[in-house]
């Protein structure tokens, strides 16, 4: 009797990658399903407010297009975070440039706050979001990767292109700022 698919042990990311390379498109569905929500959380925590799904999609498209360069030295999720963070940095640069050239329309501000309201409903989450906004972009990335994603300092250093020591310093500065903000509010 053959074992049912539900009882099959969880396949590793590397096994799924190999299956996808062999032509099994369901393996891609499994990989996207496994990591997409974590990527969306990371994007939301990092301050992305609009187009999070598009960002996650771009991350996966880029990742799958260059899977041959993924050697499995880090986890696939860490690698995906690295790709997504680069995309977010590109976005921030592009937004900064457009802010410098195009004045912000009143209607844009309204739609932005509308999306934000949908994203964060409760007061506690709003306070957390504001406390994260008080951090520098790198501090915020390090802090959310550590607290919300549970990455090690080594993995975080890889994502943000830094050292473990620098990641530790960023984390300690961030936790101090967040605690002070939440206590004062």
């Amino acid at each position, binding site marked *: 009797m053959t074992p049912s698919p539900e009882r099959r042990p969880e396949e590793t990311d590397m096994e799924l990658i190999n299956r996808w390379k062999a032509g099994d498109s369901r393996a*891609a569905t499994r990989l996207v399903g496994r990591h997409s929500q974590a990527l969306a959380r990371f994007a939301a925590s990092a301050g992305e407010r609009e187009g999070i799904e598009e960002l996650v999609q771009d991350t996966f498209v880029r990742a799958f297009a260059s899977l041959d360069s993924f050697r499995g030295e880090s986890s696939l999720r860490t690698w995906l975070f690295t790709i997504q963070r680069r995309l977010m940095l590109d976005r921030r640069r592009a937004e900064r440039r457009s802010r410098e050239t195009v004045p912000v329309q009143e209607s844009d501000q309204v739609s932005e706050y509308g999306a934000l309201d949908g994203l964060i409903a409760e007061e506690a*989450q709003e306070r957390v979001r504001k406390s994260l906004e008080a951090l520098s972009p790198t501090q915020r990335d390090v802090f959310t990767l550590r607290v919300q994603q549970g990455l090690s300092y080594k993995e975080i250093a890889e994502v943000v292109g830094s050292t473990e020591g620098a990641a530790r310093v960023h984390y300690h500065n961030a936790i101090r700022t967040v*605690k002070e903000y939440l206590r004062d509010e």
Partner: protein
Amino acid sequence: MNNCIDNEIQELLPDLLHQSLDGAIRQRVEAHLATCESCREELDVLRTVKSAAVFAPAINTDSIVRQIPPYRMIVPGVEQPKRSRMVSWLVAAGFALAVIGGGALVVSNQSRPAQSVASSASVTPSQSTEPVTVVPETHALALASAADLSELSDGSLVQLMNEMDDFDALPASEIEPVIAVDSVDSL
């Protein structure tokens, strides 16, 4: 601010939150938390921050999968090897050097006639006792390569002098001849 002095435990709090600690270390952290109020407060903050992240929008995985192109294996022969990439960099660097060197040569050639005039005009009294006629270096070379001047007829010499007047490299204003002054005579 966490007043606890045990930095090692503080660093493990996010791992405790994600239940990624091994048994013995987990017990140690939990035992510490039982006695340390600062670390308990910090763990509460971390828990709040972690739970706030749940509010990311739900992602439609099917639409993402539809955008993923089918796998195309990179054939080793098609991919450019590292060595040839290095060679192409060296070629590019060599080309850039050649362009810069060529440009420098052109610039130096353009500035040479002016330099020769300046050097001819700066003859010191001790170097010459005769009035100096300034002749461009290129034309002086041409004369030197010609037959002995004594073999030329008067007409040819006059014609040569007239041609020298038309040389472009000569300055518009005529340079004053430098006359050597004998220090003994001046006394």
